[in-house]
Structures are given as structure tokens and as C-alpha cells.
């Protein structure tokens, strides 16, 4: 087994037993990135020099006998939305293509405290707006299972880097499914925690009330280890929850007897690919065999989730992206007047989808339209949240498909934004309701493309999700399959 093929759990053991050094591991990972990057385009920046330096430093600490974190010396990649002090952070937009952050995001600070090794910044849809990674200023990411296809988005680079063994763990963000949909389409584990579980400080904002950070891993255990390292209250983020973070690994048990798993009827509707429905139903059957109790539930406002999301998210985005005006940092177009500079900078600096969403968001907040759109959407959002509250009266966790289809072809939906938006139909409600959701592999279609299963839980019950996911993963083999690269 090559070092880059290891899980974090395995690598960490080898590192602590000194069978492997972080330098060797990092070098192997960097080599792997170099070999596969031309095919996949998952990285927008490889921080080789910094990575080797960090790896050596960790090896030295270990040699001195210091007690180290399980993530110490582990090569990790970050979506290019996380601010990294002194390291270019672009959000895959032309408008930030020259931006060097003056500070670290809280997630990065915490990872540094864990002695992680940053191997690079990962490709994504511009400002996390997209479901196929085709909206990146740096070009699309390819799906390692089929290079003609999208890995999903917006955190496409973060999902692919795990699927293709380009790093051992990665982080992304999820505003409407941007971790879970690419995890599903790329065949890896990804979790969007409860809103407020992980600090958003230093993460380039798309839609502030929906954005949440989460990890990608090769296994449920790895995802749990990664989440534990970054979760918790941050005084710099007023919306982060002041709650203790449990040791998630303590909940990784194979026995799920008596666990009540809800299956919402609204998630098995027309338009869902047969292979996806079949794999999801089989996974549910499998859970039943493991001892879980399957409960039929209803989430009646599901059909309003996509329109509600596109009102709330675009409204917030239109405001969040106002700061990219050419005045303080980032791209600035040459112009004669201030107004002209604003128009040209933003006209040239943002891509098509970002501009589409800014315009939509500006419109829905405009005087005379606010009540009909933004306010109404906020009210529907409350109804969606209440749907889940009543559902969780009947069950402990909810299991659903992640995306109606497996990976679609690059270019297939770029000219049809509505079709593209529907790709997130099963993930969007979770963000609107601020709930945690994990995706893990549960099968493959006839084309050999991965299918992901989504497990949703009540607020701040990530440990319960990890429990069921672990039990399922440990009794199936899906996660062991690797793409043919």
C-alpha cells in the first residue's frame, strides 16, 4: 500500500509508531498530486514548500517525544474559500485572483494547532456558487470515476482530492449541498455539521445564514476525526454555538439496534434516477438488518426548498459580495470614474453564475419586492425547519438519497441553471433547517459511478449520525472501491 492510500486513522498510527515519517507521507502525497493533477484539476495551488516544512517540523516534534494530535503530520487540502495567512486565497474568482489574506480563518488556526500539513488549496465553483465545479475561474474539476463527468460542486476539488488519494483529508463548505453532493458524486464521505458547530470566521461568505464548514474523508472515522479538530465555539463568530464538542470516535459503534431511522416519502419522487433510488432503498434495508427500526415520515414543505433557498441565498450573497469593489484588495479594472471602476471591476471580475445570483439577490431585496420574496422565503424556511422538528419526534435520524442522479457530464447542465439547481433538491432543506447531514458511499450505478447516502440528524447530534454511518460503512464494502486512475 502506498502511503497516500492510507486513511488518517492508519497513517496516524504509523506516524506515531514511527514506521512512517510525515515527510515521507507528505512527499508521497505531493508526488501523487503532481501525477494526477493534470487529469483532475482539483488543486488551484499546491503548497509544496510549506507542506514539506511543516512535515519536517512535526517529525522533529515527534522525535522530541511531544504528545501530538491525531492530525499531526497529516497532509490535508483546503477548499480555496478558507483564508490562509500569506497564502493566496481566491475563492476561484478572478476578482480575488491576487488576494493574499492577512489572517488565518479559525479553522486553519485550529488545524495549525493540530500540526496539520497543508498541501494546497482546492478547486471549487466561484464563491461556492454551483453544483458541478464548472463555475471556477481556474476551470472545472474532473470526476476521477469518469473524466468526462463532473465531481459535483461547489466543493468539487475537496471531494476529488479524497477520491483520488491526493490528500488524506480535506475541508469544504456547504451552503445548499456543496459538501454532500460532491461527496456523493465522487464516492467519499463528507459531512455538513449543524449550522454554528464550526466557526465561519475567515471563510469567504456566500450565504451567511446557510454556510457551514465540514470535512471530507475516506472513511467515517476520518471525517469524525477531522470534524472534532475544527468544531467548537469561536468568540470571533457570533453565530457559532457555545456547546461542548463530544469525542465523536466514542460513538463509532457497529450496533444500531433500536435506532429509529426515518424515511421521508417526499424524497423518492419522479426525476430520481432508478439506480439512485435502488441503492438508497437497499441501504435502508441493510440498516434494518443491522437492527434499526425504519419509520415512514413526511417533510411536506420539501417542494418549496429549492425556490426558498434561491431567494435567501442569493439575497445574502448579493450583500456579501458587495465588498469586492476594487477599492481595497483584489482585481481592479482601469477606469476614469468611481462608478465606472465599480462597474468594470465587478463586470470583469465575477463570472456568469455569480453575476446571475447577485442580480437575483439584489432584486429580491429591492424596495417593493422584499415582502413578496425575501420575507416570504424566511417564513417558508421556518415551516421547513418545523417539518424536521416534527419528523424528529418520530425518529432519531433520517436517511435519504443525496442527489437525484449520479455524476452528470461536464457541460450537460451549464446552460440550464434550473436543472443545475435541482441537483441540490435533497440537500438544500438541511441548510435551510440548519441541520447536520453526512453522505457516504452506498453503491454504484451501471456506469460504475458512485452513489451517496445521506443521513440527517437533529441539531448538534453529529455523533448520532456518525454512529449510524459507521455501522453501515463497517458492514459494507462500498468505501473500499477506488476510481481507476
Amino acid at each position: 500500500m502506498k502511503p497516500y492510500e492510507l486513511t488518517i486513522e492508519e497513517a496516524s498510527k504509523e506516524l506515531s509508531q514511527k514506521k512512517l515519517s510525515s515527510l515521507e507521507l507528505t512527499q508521497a502525497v505531493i508526488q501523487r498530486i503532481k501525477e494526477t493533477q493534470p487529469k483532475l484539476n482539483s488543486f488551484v495551488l499546491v503548497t509544496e514548500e510549506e507542506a514539506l516544512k511543516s512535515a519536517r517540523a512535526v517529525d522533529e516534534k515527534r522525535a522530541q517525544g511531544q504528545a501530538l494530535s491525531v492530525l499531526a503530520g497529516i497532509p490535508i487540502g483546503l477548499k480555496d474559500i478558507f483564508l490562509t495567512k500569506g497564502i493566496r486565497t481566491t475563492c476561484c474568482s478572478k476578482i480575488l485572483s491576487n488576494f493574499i489574506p492577512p489572517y488565518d480563518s479559525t479553522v486553519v488556526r485550529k488545524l495549525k494547532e493540530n500540526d496539520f500539513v497543508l498541501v494546497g488549496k482546492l478547486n471549487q465553483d466561484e464563491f461556492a456558487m454551483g453544483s458541478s465545479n464548472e463555475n471556477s475561474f481556474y476551470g472545472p474539476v474532473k470526476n476521477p470515476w469518469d473524466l468526462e463527468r463532473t465531481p459535483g460542486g461547489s466543493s468539487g476539488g475537496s471531494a476529488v482530492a479524497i477520491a483520488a488519494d491526493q490528500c488524506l483529508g480535506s475541508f469544504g463548505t456547504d451552503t445548499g449541498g456543496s459538501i454532500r453532493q460532491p461527496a456523493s458524486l465522487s464516492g467519499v464521505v463528507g459531512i455538513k455539521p449543524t449550522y454554528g458547530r464550526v466557526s465561519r470566521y475567515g471563510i469567504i461568505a456566500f450565504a451567511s445564514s446557510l454556510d457551514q464548514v465540514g470535512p471530507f474523508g475516506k472513511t467515517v472515522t476520518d471525517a469524525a476525526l477531522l470534524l472534532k479538530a475544527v468544531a467548537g465555539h469561536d468568540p470571533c463568530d457570533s453565530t457559532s454555538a457555545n456547546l461542548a464538542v463530544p469525542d465523536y470516535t466514542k460513538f463509532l459503534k457497529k450496533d444500531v439496534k433500536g435506532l429509529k431511522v426515518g424515511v421521508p416519502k417526499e424524497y423518492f419522487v419522479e426525476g430520481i434516477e432508478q439506480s439512485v433510488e435502488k441503492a438508497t432503498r437497499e441501504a435502508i434495508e441493510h440498516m434494518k438488518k443491522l437492527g434499526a427500526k425504519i419509520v415512514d415520515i413526511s417533510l411536506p414543505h420539501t417542494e418549496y426548498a429549492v425556490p426558498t433557498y434561491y431567494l435567501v441565498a442569493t439575497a445574502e450573497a448579493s450583500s456579501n459580495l458587495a465588498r469586492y469593489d476594487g477599492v481595497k484588495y483584489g482585481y481592479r479594472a482601469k477606469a476614469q470614474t468611481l462608478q465606472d471602476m465599480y462597474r468594470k471591476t465587478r463586470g470583469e471580475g465575477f463570472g456568469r453564475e455569480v453575476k446571475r445570483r447577485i442580480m437575483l439577490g439584489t432584486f429580491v431585496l429591492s424596495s417593493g419586492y422584499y415582502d413578496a420574496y425575501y420575507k416570504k422565503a424566511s417564513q417558508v424556511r421556518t415551516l421547513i425547519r418545523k417539518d424536521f422538528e416534527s419528523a424528529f419526534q418520530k425518529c432519531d435520524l433520517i436517511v435519504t438519497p443525496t442527489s437525484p442522479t449520479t455524476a452528470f457530464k461536464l457541460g450537460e447542465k451549464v446552460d440550464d441553471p434550473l436543472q443545475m439547481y435541482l441537483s441540490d433538491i435533497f440537500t438544500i432543506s438541511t441548510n435551510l433547517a440548519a441541520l447536520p447531514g453526512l453522505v457516504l458511499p452506498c453503491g454504484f450505478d451501471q456506469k460504475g459511478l458512485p452513489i451517496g447516502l445521506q443521513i440527517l440528524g437533529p441539531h448538534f447530534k453529529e455523533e448520532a449520525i456518525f454512529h449510524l454511518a459507521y455501522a453501515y460503512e463497517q458492514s459494507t464494502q462500498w468505501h473500499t472501491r477506488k476510481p481507476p486512475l
Partner: protein
Amino acid sequence: MKDTTYEPVIGLEVHAQLKTQSKIFCGCSTKFDAKENEFTCPVCTGMPGCLPVLNKKAVEFSVKMALATHCQVNERSIFARKNYFYPDLPKGYQISQYDQPLAQKGHVEIQVDGQTKKIRLHRIHMEEDAGKNIHGTISSYVNLNRAGIPLIEIVSEPDVRSSQEAGAYLRELRSMLRYLEVCDGNMEEGSFRCDVNVSVKPIEQKEFGTRCEVKNINSFRFVEKAIEYEIQRQIEVLEGGAKVIQETRLWDSDQNKTFSMRSKEEAHDYRYFPEPDLLPLRVAPAWVEEIKRTLPELAKQKKERFMKMYQLSSYDASLLVQEKSLAQYFESVIEICKEPKLASNWILSELLREFGPEQGATSPVTPQHLGELLALIVKGTISGKIAKQIFEKMVQTGQAPQAIVQKEGLIQVSDVAQIEAWVEEVLKEQKAFVDKYHAGQTKLFGFFVGEVMKKSHGKANPAKVNETLKKKLVKGA
């Protein structure tokens, strides 16, 4: 032409900078004197990924003003984003409050021409200040030191009916802010700013006329002038058969005129929506009660107390309470000299002449020293005239009056024998005038007093001099 009497209807919006140590959403200093962009950080410069964290002190200061103006403090209020593009606004939106402000429905009492009038407050809300654009010859610059300084916006109901009332209202607000020590109220430095909404209507008409907002007014005098100009301008528009256009106008203090900045059609659509990066602001009633208990006596109450306790005139009392520090100074002086009227006279004439109301209390003449000086007068150790000389020295050196008295040998002479000697000498020297006096020119008495004082180098006790002179002049007759 029919003879219409017009009535102005005026509403005021005041922006007051709160003098917290740090900014409203980050830890940067709020100091006024600083190099360009010295007090900035990723949060107040609108770096990607930054998030605001509310400064509790700013909330406390805002609640103080809300309580002082009898507002209802809302247990739950919401921050909102006000979106517009401008280089001094780094995030492209200002964090403010919109439909759910911190406080509502208050009032302020003002005095105009001896009449008391209540001006109702519509609301008080919290927000962040913007930075400043600086325009050079070739380039423009942005200074973000001011960006993120906490502000409260105090919005009145349209209850003001004259420029005089507007002035009184603003002075009252400023005094309250300064008494509460939440804002230094400096209009020139921009820590107290005012926008005025003015409309006029025929006096018998119920509905208000179309209003204009006047911005950019940086002194009380200009507020009054701008309102007067605007009332006159609008009346002329109406008299000319035209209609007032709703617009924003700027005050030009060089030309003493307002001119149009933008019309209603050009007005911004700020696209307010709740700030998702901040939780609703919850102000617990228990905390409000706690803050209420710390509220100081305000100028109005203090003035009433001074009039009652110290038998001061309304005029003197209002001068003493114009600054909280001055009022405190006054009371410290009384504690030592025990003579309120004397203390008031000295402070209002001597101290204010030297230092003015704002610097009086922090001048080299400490209240302790002034109290001691006045006590020396009361005891008869020195004369009022000598006291003034000593006061001059105290202004220059900051020394205690006792020390100056000793050093300069200025103790008043009340010894009868000594005074008699001086009197006799004078009467001898001024024989001709003594005769005139006896011939009926009794006005010369003052002249003799002056000569005796001169002889004593001002140290003779004037009362004793008077007494002795009277005796001697009669005796000699």
C-alpha cells in the same frame, strides 16, 4: 396675493459617536488622533471572511441614552444591513438597525423663551460609522480609522416648529450625552452630527408639506441658519405657486445656502435585510434596571437642585450646569468655602473668563485651591481685590493660595492701629481735599479709601478702612 401664514415642521436625526474604548464590531481603538488607517483590522476593513462581534459597552452606552430620553428599550432588537456602494464603506453595507431598533418612543424636554416643550423621540438605534474619503490632486484615499466606531442615531418626531427649538433640542441632547459620558458631543470633529428634515405648511392645514432633508451641518449655529434658510426657501417656492420637491440638500456654510444633492428618484434603495452574521440583540430587563441605577443626575435636575439648595438664580444655575465637570467643580468649591453665591460668582466670572466652560474644571486652578482662596476672603484674611491678584498667580502657576499669600506677604491687615496710622497719613497729605469734603463734597470719601488702600499696597481690610475713615473725618470736623 392672499396672506398665508406658514408653519414649519421640523424633524431631526442626530448621529452620536459613542466613546467606547474599542469599535462596535472589533477590538480596534476609537482614538481620534491617529495616523491614517492606524486603527484598523480585517474586520473593520471588510476583509473577506470577517465577522462582526458586538461590543457590549456600546449597547450599555446606547441603553443609557435611551433611558435618559425616556425611551422604551426593546428586549429584542435586530441588526440589519444597509446596502450601498461607497469607498468609505468597506463591506459595501453598513450594519445598522432597521425595523426593530434598540429603543423607541421617548421624549426630551426643551426650554424656549421660558416655555417648556416636549419633543418626542421616534427611535434610537445602533449602527457603525463609515470611514472617510480624502481627495488629493491626483488620487483619492480612504481612511478607515473611523469605520466601525459605534454610533447611535436619535430620530425625533416632527415636533419642532422653529430653528430656535431645533437649537434647544440639539443642545439638550448634547448635554445629556455628555452628562452620561457616552459621547463627547464635538460637532467639529464629527462626533455629534445632525441632519434636518424641514417642511412648511399653511398654519391652519393639518397635513404636513413635502419635506427636504438637509445634511452636512457641523455646528449649532449652522443648523439654525440652515433651517431658517430652508423655511424661507420653501415658503418662496409655495408662494410662487410651485411645489416643494422631496429631495436631499446640502448646507453650504460659506454661502449660507442649501443646495440640491439628490432627488427622491435618485435616492438609494438600501435593500435592508436582517444581518445574518449577528444574533438578535437581547437586552435583559434586569440589565436595563442595573443601568438605570447608574444613571447620573442630568443637567436639568442638577439645575433645579442648585436653585433650591444654593438659592442660585435660574440663569446662574444653568451656566453652572452647562458642563457636568463644571457643576462638579462648583460643588467641590462650596464644600471648602461654604459660600455658594460667592463660589458661583467666582466661577462664572473669573474661572470661565480664563478657561471657558469645558476646560474650567481641568484648569490649573483646582476646586480645592479655589475653595481655599474663597475661604480666605470669607475669613477676612485677604480682600477681594487681593484675591483676584492671587487668582492670577494661581492661573499661571497652579499653586495653592496659601502659598502665594505667604510668599507675597499678601495677608490683609486688619490691625486698627496700623490702619489708623495709614488713614492719618493720608488725611494729612490730602489736606486740601479734606477741606473740600468738609465743605460738602462727600463723594471724595471713595478717593480717601483708594489712597489708604494704595498706601497699604492693597492689604488693608477695606471694611476697617471705611470705618476708620468715617470716624476720623467726623472727628476732624
